[in-house]
């Protein structure tokens, strides 16, 4: 008993003060890519060929799809002009699939849930996770989000064991055909309204496994998705930032510089109606 008390004193209080205080990850972290302004030399698309998951495109400007990006930094080394860099910013979630394509130093936009939804979920959110072919990375980081450092439950968000108790479904992995039915059944078992979140590049676009004949290239080919959290795997803070912005609980001062996008023409978001 004495050893418990002593250990408790030694361990101290370890939960992050984020978001009350600002938090910056060390520069060693590979976070949201930033594309600097300026024209590329004619005909150069070295960044495109260096990208293992076809995330980088050169049209008029260089663009990078966070949903496909695996944050490997190959394009940083691949660009002779040094136009692409990886910042240590962990904030990069977006509400629509299209919003994940970035052109500069702006992060995608996370649209806050509407008032009706906020009334239901705003202060208490129960989360169910399904691993659908993930490599273990996203699963481990989601587990870490509930540990005493990141402590998701201090925001009233808990991971629950049954879909019947869940408001939100976090899906990781590229959705192998063998897992599709189990995922659909989990979704259908949830009470409405319900939210679906694609976590990690696999769940958004298939990630490293894109165009596998055995997988479905991400959740939104199977279920309607309300929020996309990029990362390979996403840092626990990326997940926390995304969920807090979705629930309108993150102070504006903690927001990244976001790219405002028109809401029209976005069919992927269901806003919890649960209609596929």
């Amino acid at each position: 008993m004495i050893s418990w008390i002593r250990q408790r004193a030694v361990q101290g209080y370890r939960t992050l003060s984020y978001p009350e205080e600002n938090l910056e990850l060390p520069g060693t972290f590979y976070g949201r890519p930033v594309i600097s302004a300026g024209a590329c030399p004619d005909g150069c698309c070295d960044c495109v060929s260096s990208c293992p998951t076809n995330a980088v495109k050169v049209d008029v400007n260089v663009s990078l799809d966070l949903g496909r990006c695996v944050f490997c930094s190959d394009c940083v080394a691949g660009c002779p002009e040094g136009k692409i860099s990886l910042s240590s910013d962990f904030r990069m979630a977006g509400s629509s699939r299209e919003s994940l394509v970035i052109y500069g130093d702006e992060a995608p936009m996370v649209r806050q849930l509407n008032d009706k939804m906020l009334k239901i979920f705003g202060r208490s959110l129960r989360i169910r996770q399904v691993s659908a072919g993930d490599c273990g990375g996203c699963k481990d980081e989601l587990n870490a989000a509930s540990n005493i450092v990141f402590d998701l439950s201090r925001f009233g968000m808990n991971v629950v064991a049954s879909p019947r108790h869940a408001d939100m479904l976090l899906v990781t992995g590229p959705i192998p055909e063998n897992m599709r039915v189990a995922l659909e059944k989990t979704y259908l078992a949830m009470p409405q309204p319900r939210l679906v979140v694609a976590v990690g590049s696999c769940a958004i676009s298939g990630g490293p496994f894109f165009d596998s004949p055995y997988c479905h290239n991400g959740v939104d080919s199977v279920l309607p998705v309300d929020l996309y959290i990029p990362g390979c795997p996403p840092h626990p803070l990326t997940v926390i930032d995304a969920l807090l912005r979705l629930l309108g609980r993150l102070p504006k001062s903690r927001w990244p510089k976001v790219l405002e996008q028109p809401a029209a023409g976005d069919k992927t978001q269901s806003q919890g109606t649960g209609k596929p």
Partner: protein
Amino acid sequence: MLQDFLIFKNAEPLWQNDLPKVSSAALVEKTARNIAAGARLVQWFGQLLASTGTVRLYSILADDTGHRLGILTADLTEGSSYPSLTSMVPAADRAEREVFEQFGIRPDGHPWLKPLRHPVKKAELKTGRTLGLVPENNIGRHYPFWKLAGDAVHEVGVGPVHAGIIGPGYFRFSCVGEQIEHLEIMLGFEHRGAEELIEKAAPARIPILVESIAGDTSIGYATAFAQAVESLAGVEVTGRAETLRAIALENERMAYHVGDLGALAGDVAYWPTTAYFGRLRGEFLNTAMDMGGNRQGRYYVRPGGVKRDLTTPVYERLLKRFINARTEVQECLDQMFGSLSVLTRYDQSACISRENAVAFGFVGPVARSCGVGIDVRTDHPTGYWQLDRHSVVVGKEGSVLDRAMIRKQEIELSLAKILQMLESLPNHETNVFMPVKLAAIRGDFCLSMVEGWRGQVIQTLVLNQDGSIARYKSQDPSFQNWNAMQLANRGNAISDFPVCNKSCNLAYNGHDL
């Protein structure tokens, strides 16, 4: 031992033309005879030879005390059969089922030739947001579970979606009262076609796919893959790069061992350890991030070295972190293992016998917990471990307590070793990264393995003349060890299943590929 086999070493380049060929019956007979003489089955897999349309069977054995590996092959026509090895060598069970599923080569007399991964291509089914309106795919529908007869038997089915943040698999318990008489685990839900994708992928994508087979062993997989590529291309990496890889691998081991012990403590409601280890695990993940940019150690180890050198500030941060961690981890370990209420729950729970461990070819901490002292770092060392010694930790009874103790001791050893490696890190101004391309220069066949935190991670690379991949065979330690979970639960109370599960902590994705 290894009679009639071509002897080679871990990560040694070989030429396919030099590999000894025998008939399929002789392959089975010689494999079984050598295993009876004390060799261990490392790999048994097939390869479709595009030129002739035949399937080549590879049998790879290890003489662990002799630090040698042996290889023998046989060519069969597609759809043919051969006498099953499993009836004599239970360790070949999953491997023979895999060859049957992938190439249709039937092992005659296999005790029960069940599906292994049920590969279903999405093109074979209508896809899209149909929400269950599409007829279900065949997985699980007609799987022949072993049924126990009798009125007293009841079955409990769990999965594939489990009650936590964990991978998918289907477990069927056959119980009498509270006691598990039999557990059968059906896998394959995470089949993503990783090997096929790697064989066809663009060069830049290959290492990313390799790391994503089991992303919790990213460093282990990437190191094994890099060793194979370097060996075939005839490239040697610098001592500094080798040491950095070894540090990253030991760091990965500690992250997961610490996490496992935290989870094990949670399963017996010993929350202080769960909380402290949950936090301490982050220290090791952040170390991986400081070394390579990613908390899971991805994109760090590549053929030709490591992608980022340790700068002096990072070096000092790591050193300080590990010195602190040594005290903190030790205190938490002492508290956990000093608590009788914890130890009683682990002691004598879910035992695996040494005989079963040898017969079924278990590897890693699961094998070591039953007294089978195999460890790639000592038996088949590569890289840093060629110049250093690792003391293998073994247990006695193969119980949950043994597996927890193995983790405790390996954490202590790894921490000491990392500090030693950091202090003796070759400090010369060497380049730690020289990209190496896939090329068949010194050979076109290489088996490379490392001791990941779950056990031996094997990556076998077979190249064509032009350097493209003819066959990529990835084998996770879980491929062997899932059978350990099934065996360990026999006679166990069903309420002890969680501690048994966590004490093995096997990979669904590594098995399902």
